[in-house]
């Protein structure tokens, strides 16, 4: 990767380079160390040319929660790039960098990749070290690359992966060369279609793109099988119990004492905590901290947090059973395409949470998943998601690469005339 310029999501600590998580509370934070994933990419010869905007603390699906302002979608000004890795996706789509890093807690690599017409992969939980990544939800967060093709993603992921003794959840497994395993024939590959996702309810153009991609895979020799994930409808409520709970715990470290924004004119220590946090966090982050605090508080812990972790096991069991008879699962990445700023979630936050309907379950189960562009819906890019079995990045990268060798969607670039 010698000399390859990369952009890093501003959630990865970079020594001597301001790292804000797009929050006021970290607007002056200069980390004294560099995240392992970034360090590995730089050791391979790549050059970090900048940090990218994102939803504040990675909490959002539209990049509209950043303290520093919205990122525009390179395909249409005034439209969201997706989130939370929206800045990374937009930078790659606009041709500023050939690839960028992102993180994915509930779809934050795949959904912006889909909305910006590029490729992005969330690896298996534990494949990439989380050390130096500012934590949002520790049991769901995973770093991965966003690039123009599955092949480029494989090159980056090869470098980012590997055991790190500084992350206690880092997998200690033999490293595999993901470039070596792409470009294999997919004849006989069994792809599952989840019947509970009720794709018939989606926009007809989203359905048409999905059917077109299915046909392409069929002509390449893949076989489709309908599968059932009976508890999948619980993914969104499970996620919105677990992720805020972990977030409320992780974000308790931001108190204005050791780093980050400290409020002025405070009284006692408690007042310093309250004012620094209240001034430093934006509305969406506050909302999630409060939900998490509620879910973890005495009297509600069993009903919300423990219950969600039990349902999470049911979801994981469903995947395990399904993967006994299939190789991978195919879904649209997102129920729709990029939308105009302010058009979703203003009245009801759940409207925006449903953006991650198809992506959240692989985070809950820790599975790898990739999004690749597969055409346009109303002139905006649409994404196709392939979910793999545990540690089977080789299979989803191969299937994505074969798709891209037999189509040209990933080569499509925005005109950028409006900018």
């Amino acid at each position, binding site marked *: 990767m010698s000399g390859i310029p990369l952009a890093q999501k501003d959630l990865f600590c970079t020594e001597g380079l301001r790292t804000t998580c797009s929050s006021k509370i970290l607007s002056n934070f200069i980390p004294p160390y560099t995240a392992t994933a970034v360090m590995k990419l730089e050791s391979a010869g790549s050059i970090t040319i900048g940090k990218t905007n994102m939803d504040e603390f990675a909490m959002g699906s539209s990049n509209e929660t950043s303290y520093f302002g919205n990122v525009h979608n390179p395909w249409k000004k005034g439209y969201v790039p997706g989130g939370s890795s929206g800045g990374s996706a937009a930078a790659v789509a606009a041709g500023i960098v050939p690839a960028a890093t992102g993180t994915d807690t509930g779809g934050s690599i795949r959904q912006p990749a889909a909305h910006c017409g590029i490729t992005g992969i969330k690896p298996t939980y534990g494949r990439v070290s989380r050390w130096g990544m500012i934590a949002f939800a520790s049991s769901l967060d995973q770093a991965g690359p966003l690039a123009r093709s599955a092949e480029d993603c494989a090159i980056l992921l090869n470098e980012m992966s590997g055991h790190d003794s500084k992350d206690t959840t880092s997998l200690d497994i033999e490293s595999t060369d993901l470039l070596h395993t792409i470009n294999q024939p997919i004849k006989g590959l069994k792809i599952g279609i989840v019947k509970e996702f009720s794709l018939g309810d989606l926009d007809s153009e989203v359905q048409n793109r999905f059917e077109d991609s299915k046909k392409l895979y069929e002509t390449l020799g893949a076989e489709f099988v309908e599968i059932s994930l009976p*508890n999948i409808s619980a993914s969104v409520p499970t996620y919105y119990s677990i992720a805020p709970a972990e977030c409320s715990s992780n974000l308790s470290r931001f108190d204005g*004492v050791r780093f980050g924004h*400290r409020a002025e004119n405070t009284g006692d220590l408690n007042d310093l905590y309250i004012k620094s946090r209240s001034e430093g966090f934006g509305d969406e982050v506050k*909302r999630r901290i*409060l939900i998490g605090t509620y879910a973890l508080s005495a009297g509600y812990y069993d009903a919300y947090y423990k219950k969600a972790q039990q349902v999470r*096991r049911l979801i994981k069991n469903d995947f395990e059973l399904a993967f006994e008879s299939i190789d991978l699962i195919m879904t649209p990445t997102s129920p729709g395409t990029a939308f105009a700023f302010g058009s979703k979630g203003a009245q009801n936050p759940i409207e925006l949470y449903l953006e991650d309907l198809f992506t959240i379950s692989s985070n809950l189960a820790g599975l790898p998943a990739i999004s690749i562009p597969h055409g346009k819906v109303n002139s905006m890019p649409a994404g196709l998601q392939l979910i793999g079995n545990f540690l089977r990045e080789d299979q989803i990268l191969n299937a994505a690469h074969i798709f891209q060798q037999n189509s040209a969607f990933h080569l499509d670039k925005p005109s950028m005339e409006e900018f």
Partner: protein
Amino acid sequence: MDQETVRTICYLARLQIDDKKAQKIESDLETIIEMIGGLQKFDTENVQPLYSPLEKTAFMHEDIESSDNQKEKFLQNAAASNEDYFLVPRVVE
């Protein structure tokens, strides 16, 4: 979700909500809690919670003494510090 509950959660989280935004936050929390409440219909009797997708015990570091004092570097990010410590308002009268 009544005002009193919201006030208690805010205090536990050390957050203050603007009066102007309080009503919206209250209704948002109620909507989200109601959505999460939908989980109750799933039968989880005798199901063990899954706290991490890996379900492995965190590994232990070797017990080797190391000395890597980076005090200066870490104090640099604090809003108030002296040579040795982070400074906060007096906590003992």
